[in-house]
């Protein structure tokens, strides 16, 4: 589990790297446009690509720390054992959702490889943008499994709610 935590944190660092690229590419475009009057082609696409990387490299971490937004009204109403059961069900459903997404994205990912789709200006292959989505959702699923097996683990390491 601790290896997984490290991995998921490393992916977050990757996500940070791509946010930096979004900012720098955008600024490079603005400056070049101002100086030469001839802006750079394809910055939009670089931004879109980096956005996919930023988000989906960070997604496993969200599932690992159980950071998905939920409505905990019921915590104030039901007795503890019932609450424990409800939490377990919610965790299993979360696993189901993550699994669903990671299975569903495989087919369009395969299509993107097979058909050779590319972006408009940069020619960035579309499968490359699918890469973080496929990997991110797979690791998110893995994270939900860890949470089911060691439900209390994160309560110790993550100082958020719960």
């Amino acid at each position, binding site marked *: 589990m601790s290896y997984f935590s490290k991995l998921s944190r490393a992916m*977050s660092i990757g*996500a*940070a790297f791509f*946010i930096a690229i*979004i*900012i720098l590419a*955008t*600024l490079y*475009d*603005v400056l070049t446009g*101002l100086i030469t009057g001839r802006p750079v082609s394809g910055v*939009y696409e670089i*931004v*879109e*690509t980096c*956005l*996919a990387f*930023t*988000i*989906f490299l*960070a*997604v496993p*971490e*969200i599932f690992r720390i159980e*950071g*998905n*937004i*939920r*409505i*905990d*009204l*019921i*915590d*104030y109403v039901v007795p503890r054992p019932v609450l424990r059961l*409800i*939490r377990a*069900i*919610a965790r299993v*459903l*979360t696993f*189901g*959702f993550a699994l*669903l*997404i990671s*299975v*569903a*994205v*495989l*087919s*369009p990912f395969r299509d993107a490889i097979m058909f050779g789709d590319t972006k408009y200006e940069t020619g960035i292959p579309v499968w490359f*943008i*699918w890469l973080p*989505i496929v990997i991110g*959702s797979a690791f998110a699923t893995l994270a939900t499994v860890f949470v089911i097996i060691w439900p209390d683990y994160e309560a110790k390491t993550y100082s*958020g*709610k719960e």
Partner: protein
Amino acid sequence: MTVQLIGQLGMLALICLVFLRVPVAVAMGLVGFFGYAAINGFSNALQVTGQVPYDVATHYTLSQLPLFVLMGDLAVRSGMSSRLYSATRDLFSGLRGSQAYATLGASAGFGAVSGSSIATAATMTRVAVPPMKEAKYDDRLSAGSIAAGGTLGILIPPSIALVIFAMIAEQSVPRLYAASLIPGLLLCLLYILVVALLLRLSPNWAPVDGTRKSLFDRLRSLGQIWEIVLLFLVVIGGLYSGILTATEAAAVGALGAWLLGVITRRLSWKDTRTGIYDTIRTTAMLFVILCAANIFTYFVVLTQIPQGLAALVDGMDLHPIVLMLLIGVFYLILGCFLEAFGMILITVPILMPLVQQAGFDPIWFGIFLVIMIETGMITPPVGMNIFVMQSQLPDMPLPRLYQSVLPFVLAPVVLSVIIIFFPAIVTWLPTLLFER
């Protein structure tokens, strides 16, 4: 089983799951998926679900979201927010709840830079919560005014919601922006009235901030917030002079906030790192919900519930004003469960002909719709702005959060009724600017 029945069961399932503390994204995604599968087959549902993450995560317009969140985050970490609030305290000194008013004003100001309500709410949370906490504001007042103020992000231009509406309804974005300006300022004013009302009812929710300062002292206090003023000037100036697009302005803002923090030696390397980490987490969390909301939306499209409703209303031959009031109620209910993109996608193609037939201008309808969307952002159980608050104020229990936001729902509801009776509030400015 008819598709409408499947649709109603789906809505019911969503409510149940959400209240059984299943994460909102998980509930919307699963109900959306299985609902879609029930109507159009399992393999089609899988296909549609599989596309969504890519479509959402590569949406250029949405790239402003992490950037404006980061800008707000770094502005907070370098202490700009606390200085902003000590300055506003001076500026409005002697007035009870001055910081709640200042929050709304600042939200309107930030809304003029950000096209997203989520980004506005997220930024204002970072900027306004710590100082209000410090000044011993009741958290119901601070949370409510921030969540509500955040909605100004999509009514005051620029606005992602209006851009999406323009796409579906084939309307001009500049016209829509011109039309939204006056209602945007009006809504800010109404929110201010709500705060005033709340403070009249419970004066102990906010302190009187200090004693009245002289005019000179008030102006001098503005000098403390030169960084934010500079940041806002660069971002807004760049945007309206045409040098920067919204995303570019967001990138400049984020880097600018970081540079100002580093130059004034108020931002450490550790602050930067934590700031970026938090930004990424907030962004990923919101995108997971956006993906799930998209899946759910495709399901609702198939249920044809809105079509049925339109046919029903069409047969009743109602007075235009009654029709719009009814549509408003419909949106109010829909807004409890759907986020902005879903509300536009599902309803515009169906209601637009109806509304135009009743003699309302399409531009007017766009603004009306955005006001209803804003309402939806602060109504339980699914309200994006509430979730933004929840993600950043983990200590505050959700029931309390809902309670704090509810009085503010009054303002957009009143505004929507006002523009139904006086449509010229919306159409006056675009007509003035664009019609020759």
